[in-house]
């Protein structure tokens, strides 16, 4: 009997996975699974500490498509190159698969993936006499927001992530910058944060949130916004595709029957207007039980797993965004009217070309370099500062630029 330790985030899909472990045990009675379940920040912190020091405490770790390439390059992850035939690698959605690969070699298997999209309230739009196009622009969004904004009745025109963090407000804001034609770096790796495109994006972001957004939007991340929307307090919301199922479920949502879906807004370009994020399972090089770990990872990301979740908990509970077979399944299409939209969003997200102009990096709402977490976090804080009026857009972006430059310089100095 071997025991493996699985470090995972505390998101609903992972909780489902823990519930499904019995099924795994039936198939593999010789492997016992221990879970270490934490919220995202704590988990990342733990895993990073462990893996960077070769601690070997975990056999399976949960990583995103952000760190997978970086860690793979550092030689910390085992390559997934002995997948059995039954795994059907080709069933994985290409953009997701690509995001988890380095030199076409998979280093982590996707557990679920998401993109971003627009949610809106059909009833409010009807009342305001407007209609949401399938591919709205940010200018239109602002316009709509103004029209449905009705704070007296507890309805705010638009909810957007304002909570600082590279995975919080910066995920959204990066896509905004992308669609306004801005980029993080030019091809010489020079930061471009004070460009006009950035300023436009920032102004739009600020205007929408401060004028038509809910109060205190700098504390609103995904969860908080989701709550607001489910409570019927947002006219529109641009965020992760995983919320779709939740919002459509009358158990959770007061507005289940009034949610409308559209693609994430763009402005001057559609490139990079919707993000791509995947939670994946990987096996660290330092894992003590790599074989058992591999077995577990294969199981948890397989099509069979999706099928058995569907059997046990219904199709709405399956982890989305990883396999084309999911979207082809009748059952899924039946309960998820948004399925097509999501598949389209994920498929169209191209990490190699996140904006109109060429860039030296990959990644849409992040850049696959180690410094990005720090940069994203700092810039996210600055954006929050802009929202709360601590600095103007210009000042803020200058600070952001300066910080990014410093950090890049530090990396160069270190490199020498």
């Amino acid at each position, binding site marked *: 009997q071997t025991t493996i330790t699985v470090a995972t985030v505390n998101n609903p899909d992972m909780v489902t996975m823990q519930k499904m472990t019995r099924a795994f045990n039936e198939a593999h009675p010789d492997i016992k699974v221990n879970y270490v379940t934490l919220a995202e920040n704590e988990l*990342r912190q733990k895993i990073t500490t462990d893996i*960077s020091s070769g601690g070997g405490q975990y056999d399976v770790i949960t990583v995103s498509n952000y760190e997978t390439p970086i860690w793979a390059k550092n030689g910390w992850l085992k390559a997934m190159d002995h997948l059995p035939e039954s795994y059907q690698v080709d069933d994985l959605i290409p953009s997701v698969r690509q995001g988890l690969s380095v030199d076409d070699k998979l280093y982590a298997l996707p557990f679920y993936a998401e993109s971003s999209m627009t949610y809106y309230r059909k009833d409010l739009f009807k009342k305001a006499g407007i209609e949401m196009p399938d591919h709205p622009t940010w200018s239109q969004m602002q316009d709509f927001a103004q029209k449905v904004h009705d704070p007296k009745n507890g309805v705010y025109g638009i909810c957007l992530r304002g909570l*600082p963090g590279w995975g919080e407000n910066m995920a959204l804001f990066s896509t905004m910058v992308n669609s306004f034609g801005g980029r993080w770096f030019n091809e010489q790796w020079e930061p471009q944060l004070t460009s006009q495109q950035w300023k436009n994006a920032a102004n739009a972001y600020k205007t929408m949130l401060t004028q038509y957004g*809910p109060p205190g939007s700098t504390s609103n991340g995904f969860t908080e916004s989701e709550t607001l929307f489910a409570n019927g307090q947002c006219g529109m919301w641009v965020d992760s595709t995983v919320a779709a199922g939740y919002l459509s479920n009358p158990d959770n949502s007061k507005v289940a029957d009034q949610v409308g879906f559209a693609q994430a807004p763009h402005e001057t370009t559609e490139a990079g207007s919707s993000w791509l994020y995947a939670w994946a399972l990987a096996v660290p090089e330092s894992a003590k039980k790599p074989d058992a770990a591999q077995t577990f990872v294969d199981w948890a990301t397989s099509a069979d797993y999706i099928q058995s979740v569907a059997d046990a908990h219904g199709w709405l509970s399956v982890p989305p965004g990883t396999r084309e077979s999911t979207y082809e399944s009748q059952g899924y299409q039946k309960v998820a009217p948004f399925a097509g939209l999501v598949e389209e969003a994920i498929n169209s997200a191209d990490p190699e070309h996140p904006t109109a102009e060429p860039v030296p990096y990959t990644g849409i709402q992040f850049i696959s370099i180690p410094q990005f977490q720090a940069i994203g976090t700092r810039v996210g804080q600055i954006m929050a500062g802009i929202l709360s009026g601590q600095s103007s857009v210009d000042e803020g972006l200058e600070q952001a630029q300066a910080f990014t430059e410093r950090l890049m310089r530090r990396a160069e100095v*270190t490199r020498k």
Partner: protein
Amino acid sequence: MSASPTNASPKRRAPTRRLMAPAVLFLLIWMIVPLAMTLYYSLQDYNLMMPDMRGFAGFLSYELLFTDPVFWDALLNTLLLVATCLLITVVAGLALALLFNRTFVGRGIARTLAISPFFVMPVVTGLIWKYMLLDPVYGLFSWVMRSMGFEPIEWLSSYPLLSVVMMISWEWTPFALLILLTGLQSLPEDQLEAVRLDGANRWQEFRHIVLPHLGQVLYVVVMLESIFFLTSFAEIYATTSGGPGTATTNLPYYIYLGAFYQYDIGLSSAAAIGAVVLANICAIFLIRFVAGNLNAGSQR
């Protein structure tokens, strides 16, 4: 009171050594090892995400640290936080201690209620405040404001540092209360009696007898709270994440960002050393200026 053995004679130092050795050794190890390692790393290039690039970096980390405007913001925030929280908790704690030192109906229960916030985990404290009290939509505070016909205040974005101060004060006032209350309990009654016969009113009684007697305990409270406030992290982590902007980034949070977002152990070690230096400056300040006055009340 009594004539105390002011001189420690040689023969009496023997038990002193023996008694102190375990604690001192234990702490010595616990201090020296991490401190030495931190000092060492602060002079190294050490980025968790770049395992290949290690080596001696000289004072580069310090240079980067001191040229980082955020560091100075963090420093200022740290001092602000410590100063305001100290002021609030000590004053409020003292007032509450006096209030709860009286005998009244159900004193035990009321006292327990007042002390309870200290039992709550700091992270949970952060969450409670963020979601249940300060949230501009769902928070209790804004509900109260709204039902009184005011616009709710966006605490965490408009007054971020104040919000953190409120949280920390809520959590730590009970600490001051608890310690000061035990201190009050050991006030010799005959001194109170004497001062009353000397014609002192309540305030004078407090000012000239109670306060000096509490000196030692007050000193402990100030010292310990300074440490906790200097290193407060969880409340900020759980609510504002140091923002908006740098409004609530204090040194520990700054170090945290350095270690787990930049993965730059060199830089965060340098910042840690900076925090130690700062704390020691505070300590010297406390000892010099505060201890002299507060210690006066000790019995010996």
